[in-house]
């Protein structure tokens, strides 16, 4: 079986852009959540989000001219992370071009564009139809509906990747699943290199509005940085965010041959289904337990080998209690001996990107020898009784990490990332 190294990483997130800035942000314990600036949410019930700030789009527009026509922020974020990752790994198009390279990205949902809708209030259906007819005749230079595969397709086209070009749409599990899928493509010899991760931006009117209607979001708008409180007794919902992370997964022999060094080693993955309800996790956490156990088995590891868990940790009352019980069940005694933290406490919920960004936080832990904290955890919940690293990052010298991603609808993805033995 081939070994799979992580030889590069790119990231844009509410806590930092680029691997080093992201690592600093993760370990600083500061919230990246603030008032929404990407649209006027003044009358919305939920007015805060974890936005990506300070991203210079100009270089991306030069490399990807089509980007200037796309009204879909997650594509921009994905391309930014992918370009960083390629550079971070010391690769370029010459090294990536051909059938032995793949791209697998988790992507969020279709964006319904509202800005162009205009018409008579007494016959909105006719007005919408009329507007659509008008837009077809004059596109205004925009592509209004951007299919979910756009980012992976643009990356493949620019760099000449001719292996699998995959778009995973497993909601909150998409980033984790895309990483796992790419890992298997490399481990099983289909390709030598894969760019894998996820990207999403839910910071648009129907994203914030729609998920707010589900009751999944915290109603606290002030102070923004304290709204999402994973594992805290006062947790009352998540906060949406945006971001992207792309990891370069590479056959170890291939990496050695070009003189690349690993950041970490990708060891295993698994996905399961709750088959319970689209709205809530399965109360026993059985699907999550099975995913963790299978991921460890895939990596050839026992639960006792695990040194850190990056929790899904959404800050919703149900998820955090179920996940705590699932971690206990899957890892047994080990669950109480190791740190478990929730990056979402700082970034917000990045949905299709979250699995990839949180897997990258495991790489950060391995590289910086410190685990990120769970912030806003000040009042412990008896139902959440693990060591969540409250408040501050902690020095740590472990070797094996587990990253959980549990999606709306009951998809569970777990990846195992370890310190590379070189």
């Amino acid at each position, binding site marked *: 079986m081939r070994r799979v190294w992580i030889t590069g990483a790119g990231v844009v997130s509410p806590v930092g852009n680029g691997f080093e800035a992201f690592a600093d942000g993760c370990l600083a314990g500061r919230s990246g959540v603030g008032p929404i600036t990407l649209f006027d949410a003044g009358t919305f019930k939920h007015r805060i989000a974890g936005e990506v700030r300070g991203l210079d789009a100009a270089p991306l527009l030069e490399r990807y001219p089509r980007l200037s026509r796309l009204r879909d922020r997650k594509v921009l974020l994905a391309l930014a992370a992918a370009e960083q990752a390629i550079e971070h790994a010391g690769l370029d198009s010459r090294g990536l071009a051909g059938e032995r390279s793949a791209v697998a990205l988790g992507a969020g949902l279709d964006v319904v564009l509202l800005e162009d809708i205009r018409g008579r*209030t007494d016959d*909105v259906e006719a*007005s919408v139809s009329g507007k659509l007819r008008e*837009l077809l005749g004059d596109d205004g230079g925009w592509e209004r509906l951007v*299919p*979910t595969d756009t980012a992976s397709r643009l990356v493949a086209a620019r760099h000449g990747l001719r292996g699998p070009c*995959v778009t995973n749409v497993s909601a909150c599990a998409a980033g984790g699943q895309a990483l796992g899928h790419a890992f298997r493509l490399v481990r099983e010899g289909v390709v030598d290199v894969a760019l894998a991760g996820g990207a999403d931006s839910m910071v648009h009117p129907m994203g914030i509005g729609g998920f707010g209607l589900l009751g999944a979001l915290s109603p606290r708008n002030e102070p923004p940085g304290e709204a999402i409180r994973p594992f805290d007794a006062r947790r009352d919902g998540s906060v949406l965010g945006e971001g992207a992370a792309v990891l370069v997964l590479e056959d170890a022999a291939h990496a050695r041959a070009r003189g690349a060094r690993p950041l970490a080693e990708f060891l295993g993955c698994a996905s399961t289904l709750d088959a319970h309800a689209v709205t809530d996790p399965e109360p026993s956490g059985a*699907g999550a337990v099975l995913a963790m156990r299978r991921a460890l088995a895939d990596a050839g590891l026992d639960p006792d080998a695990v040194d850190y868990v990056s929790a899904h940790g959404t800050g919703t009352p149900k998820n955090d209690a179920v996940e705590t019980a699932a971690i206990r069940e899957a890892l047994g005694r080990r669950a109480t001996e190791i740190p478990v933290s929730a990056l979402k406490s700082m970034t917000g919920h990045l949905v299709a990107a979250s699995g990839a960004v949180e897997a990258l936080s495991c790489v950060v832990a391995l590289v910086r020898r410190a685990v990120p904290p769970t912030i806003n955890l000040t009042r412990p919940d008896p139902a959440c009784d693990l060591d969540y690293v409250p408040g501050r990052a902690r020095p740590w010298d472990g070797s094996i990490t587990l990253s959980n991603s549990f999606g709306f609808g009951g998809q569970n993805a777990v990846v195992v990332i370890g310190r590379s033995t070189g």
Partner: protein
Amino acid sequence: MNTDREGHTAGRGPGTLGDGSPAGDTVVVTAAETVNGLGIGWPAVREALAAGRDALGEARDLAAAFRPGTVAAPCPPPDARRYLGTPKLRKLMSDDAFLATVAGKLAVAAAGLSRGPDRPIADDRFAAFVACGIGAAGWRELVPVFRDSMDDDGRLSLARLGERGLRRCNPLFAFQVLANMPLCFLSIEESLRGDNLTFAPWEGGGADAIAEAAASLRRGDADAAVVCGASAMAGTQGVYWLAEKGLLTPPQVRPRPLGIPASPAAGGAAGFHAPCLSGIGVHRCPSVVSFPDPPGDSPVAGLAPADGAAALVLERFDNARRRGARPLAALAAFARETLATDGFAPCRDSSVVARVARRALERAAERHGTDSAPASVGAVILSASGDPEGDRAEASGVAQALGGPFRAVVPASAWGNLFAAGPATAVAIAAHALAGDGPTDDGALAGAVLVVCAGPGGAVAAIVLEKVSS
């Protein structure tokens, strides 16, 4: 015997057992169902094919108003009370989620694996791999939201959306937009708790779902897998998007990919070239299309968006045999390559198609311990997406791989373009044809079937299906 994830045999040796049946680790199709404009379930679709019907009509929803005359293949909605275990779930479902769930449930039932205490496969060993399209949410549900969000000038106001409009929205509307819901609803209805992935949105995603399901089974991560493809592009969002990209046929113009007409009156073979294959009636089929020689008619550029879903149940042969299931066909090999562009054209390079097809055939041959392609490819199912240059590259590439003319089946000419649902639909047709379950009684198709999957995004995949000895 060990095979890798795409059909390579580890080492070299026969891919069949001494009795002529496949090796135990061969992945076989034990059920295949289709739901589209021709009918709900394979028997209905088969009957429609035999009768020479096609599914082409006018696009649905708002599309009929903003682009009149759009030729599409909408699927009449199945009765939720008949096809869902929990009919009230329908109101949470997008159209593609509903079609996927119906097709998946039909396939699971046809395989004898419906949920329940007597199911011979544990829930957590039953996997699901789903590919779905874009834009399947119901826009009509948003009309009240828009109505209460307009300002005095008739412009949508975000301020009013936040104040009033969102209150008119179905609180669970988000579930219609989330693209993983087709898989999730199917898993809930059939208690599927095993390995899974969700792909989107074109033919490449549909092919990946099949490949990854087969890989999961070969790894031993699951005992059975449902593979489902679903797309509902014949409505508002699908038609708008395809029109914006210039991918539709002109209004009132029916698609004629590769010059193959849908209508019997226009000279099609029983209105549909699938009967050449699925009808088993290759001998009776009056017009077999050969490439690279073009058919008589010139192609019409553009496609007809369709609603539809198909679902396969895949198992390792040893598992199917152990529980007494009759395989329809074996998935002998898979190959793929991507020639992505920053636009939406399919692969227009025939050498890529040829390379992918050749590779799949070689992998299938390896399983039999030979160096050459299967001696008999009885038919080839083409995607034919309506891009004339891409379609010609697809057909020409297959001709290069096979070394000459071949018998083609072009489902898109009869039920429009199913995008992510296309690969599973094509494999379903092929599996039934190989099993002798087509619309005529001429017996099973001989040889292998090559399924080529190509479409927007530039992915090209080839799947080889073979007959399974009983």
